[in-house]
Structure formats: C-alpha cells, structure tokens
C-alpha cells in the first residue's frame, strides 16, 4: 500500500516537473514582471499597479479586446460550419474506411507547409494587382481593383479560416466516427427526416468534438498576432499585436500585464465553454 503511493508519486513526477518548469514558472514570471516599471531603455523591479491601471482604464484596451473577440467569434462560426460539413461528409457519406483515410490525409496536405507561408501566399493573390482582382477585371465583373480584398478584416478572417479549419475537422470527425451507426438507422426507422437525425442525434453526439475544435480555434485566434499583422497590413489591432508593439519598444512590464489579462480572458472563455460539455465524461 505504502509502496503503491510512492510509485504513484514517481509516475506523476516527470510530467509535473515539466509543467512546473516550462508552464507554471514562465507564467509566474510574467505575472511578476507585470507589476514592474519601465523606462525608455530598461525595466526595474517594483510592485506597482500602473500597468494594470492604464490597461483597465483605457478605452483602447476594450476596443482591442472587443476586436480580438470579434475575430474569434467570426472565425469560430465559419470554421465550425465548414469543419462540421467536411467531417460529416467524411464520416457518413464515404463508405469505405480506405477512402475515409485517404480523403482525411488529403485535408492535411496543406499543413505540411509552414503556416506563415500559407498565410503570406494570400497576399499576392488578393493584392491590388493580384490574381483575384485581375481575373475579376478581365471577366468584366469589376472596373477597378477591390481594395478590401487585402489588408482588411476580410483578409484577416480569410487567413484564420484557412489556417484553422482543420483543427475543427479533426476532433469532429473523430467523434463522428465513434457514433454507433445503428442509432442513425434507429432514427430513420422511427421516422425521423435527415434534418431531424442531424439535429437530434448527430449534433448532440458530436458535441465533445465540436467543443474541442472550438477550444483549439478560439485559443489560437485569441493568441494570434502574426496573422493580424500580415493580413491587415499592420492596420488592425488585436491583443497579440498590442503585446508585440510593447515588446518591440522594450515595454515588457506593460506587455506582461496585457498578457495576464488575455490569459484570464481566455481561461474564463474556455471555462464557460467547458460548462456546456463535460469533455472528460464524453471521451
């Protein structure tokens, strides 16, 4: 009995140590630095609330957090619709397992390249003299280039959807594959239409996958800075860019304070999401 508990501690120790050193300690450091002060060229240890006071009283902070949430919400809706449809098609319309695996791998091929490359390749496509504009113009659809195609909220969200849809497809596909096919037969036998089966049988059973995909997508979009920077031509702000600007000009304490607030926001968001589905039980 005694021996068992020692083994238990030993088994838990490696992971706990790794998490302690690489996750808890850095976050603790960020929290500590967020109370420090900064000059033009240095940071100095202190315990002051200046950074938080400025952050929480500035309406820029609220606008930027709102913008970040807006990106997350729109990206979530679109990736969910596309991701669910793709997963549904793969899970229920493709009959043979070989084809399912083949098509699933096909979905992952774009992910063999760097995500920065995938994002940046949109720029020449959407640009003022890009392929999209020149095609539309030669077809006579438009007379002059559409400016909003690039360096706009549109291009930012397009890139997000492109980058993160697979993170929705994978978990949803995974849960869909576990659905007992006889449940769907039973629904059909009981006279349910296709839509009713989808709404009352498949969606409730897919919820854990949707939730995991949601967490992936929301967490990535909330923490992003590079997509927003490149695709908006540095003209739009989200929280990550605010932190990046601070760091670029050596304002580490205020960057840390922003990071702490962002962390709390994302944790609250995910905590709320987890209230809807008990992932542990469902898995």
């Amino acid at each position, binding site marked *: 009995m005694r021996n068992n508990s020692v083994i238990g501690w030993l088994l838990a120790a490696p992971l706990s140590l790794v998490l302690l050193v690489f996750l808890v300690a850095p976050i603790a450091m960020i929290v500590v630095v967020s109370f420090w002060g*900064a*000059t*033009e*060229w240095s940071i100095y240890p202190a315990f002051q609330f200046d950074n938080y006071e*400025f952050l929480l009283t*500035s309406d*820029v902070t609220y*606008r*930027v957090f709102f*913008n970040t949430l807006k990106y997350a919400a729109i990206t979530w809706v679109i990736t969910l619709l596309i991701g669910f449809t793709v997963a549904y098609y793969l899970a229920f319309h493709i009959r043979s397992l070989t084809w399912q695996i083949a098509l699933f791998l096909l979905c992952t091929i774009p992910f063999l390249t760097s995500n920065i490359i995938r994002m940046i390749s949109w*720029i*020449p496509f959407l*640009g*003022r*003299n*890009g392929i999209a504009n020149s095609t539309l113009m030669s077809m006579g659809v438009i007379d002059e280039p559409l400016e909003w195609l*690039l*360096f706009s909220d549109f291009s930012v969200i397009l890139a997000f959807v492109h980058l993160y849809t697979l993170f929705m497809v994978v978990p949803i596909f995974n849960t869909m594959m576990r659905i007992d096919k006889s449940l769907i037969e039973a629904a059909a036998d009981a006279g349910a239409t296709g839509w009713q089966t989808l709404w009352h049988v498949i969606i409730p059973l897919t919820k854990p996958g949707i939730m995991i995909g949601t967490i992936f997508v929301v967490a990535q979009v909330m923490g992003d800075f590079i997509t927003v*920077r490149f695709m908006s*031509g*540095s*003209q*739009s*702000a989200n929280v990550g*860019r*605010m932190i990046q*600007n*601070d760091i670029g*000009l*050596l*304002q580490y304490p*205020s960057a840390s304070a922003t990071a702490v607030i962002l962390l709390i926001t994302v944790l609250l968001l995910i905590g709320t999401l987890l209230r809807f589905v008990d992932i542990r039980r469902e898995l």
Partner: protein
Amino acid sequence: MTKEEIDLTLGIFTEAKKAGQFRAFWKSFDESVNLMASGEVVIQSMWSPAITAVRSQGIPCVYQPLEEGYRSWGGGIGLSASLSGMELDAAYEYINWYLSGWVGGFLMRQGYYSAVPETSKNFMSEDEWGFWFEGKEAQGDITNPFGDVMEKAGAVRDGGSFYDRMGAVACWNAVMDENQYMVRKWNEFIAA
C-alpha cells in the same frame, strides 16, 4: 517629442487613417520592398537599400527630398562592459576591420553612408564615389553591391552630395523620453 507633440502627430495620423490614407504599414525590409514592387502602395518611407532593391527589379523608384529636410537614422557598434582580454582585443579588431573600408563601400553602394567615408573611398571606383558621395553625374553604369545595374550614365543622386544631404537633416530617429506614452498612443492609433 513632448506628450502634446505626440498627441498632435498621432491625431493627424488617426484622421488620415480614418480617411483611408494608408494601405499598409511595414516593419521589415522585405515588406517595404514588396509593397512598392507589387504596386500595393505608391509612396512610402523607405530605407536606402530597399529603394535599390526595388530599382534592381527594374521598377522606377526615387527618393523625393522634402522641403522640410530629411529624417535620418544611424547605427554604430558598441562594446560590452563585460569584455576583457582576448575577447576585447577581438572586438576591437572587428571594429577596425568594420571601419577599414570594405563594409563602408558595400553600404555606400546601397545608398548609406559609412562612419568613416574616407576609408570606403579606397573600395569604390572614382565614378561610384562621385555618384554616391559627391552627388556627381554618373559616368557609366552604377551597380548595387551585388553587381546589378541600377543607374545608367548621366544619372544624378537625389538630394546631391553627402554634405548637401546630411546638412539638411530635419530630425533623427531616436527612442524618445516619452517612449512609454508613445507606445500607448501608437497602440491607440493601430486600433483606431
């Protein structure tokens, strides 16, 4: 700049941004080159080598000296206080090599000036020195550091000679006393 000056400047910027003046802001060298080369923007603030990079692609691109003067920036090499013995000697040796002319010649063919222009002269042809430093008409082809032709005979550098250009600097890029305030206002500007 004082806080009031920062407010005034970014106030003008914000108004222009809302009116759709800006297409994009760049942070890296290649971004500024691509923005200009793709025709995404038609006027922007650029570094000298970025201009030479655009011109080397065969796309005309010129500096337009402003009535108010130039905005300049400079860089130098510093020694760390923790250096001693062999490392210190090596660092000095590196600086001596850096200032001995080859690097200066390379930089000057990109349109920069070296801290010790005289040594760079030994690594540039008379025509190059005349074009880049003295503001004289080019006698033959002027190439960038990689050998690509940028200017033909007869071309003159914008703004003229070293003394004309550096004598007309209106402001220097620097980290300001109100750095923290400036970052906050910049974030506000980006969010606007």
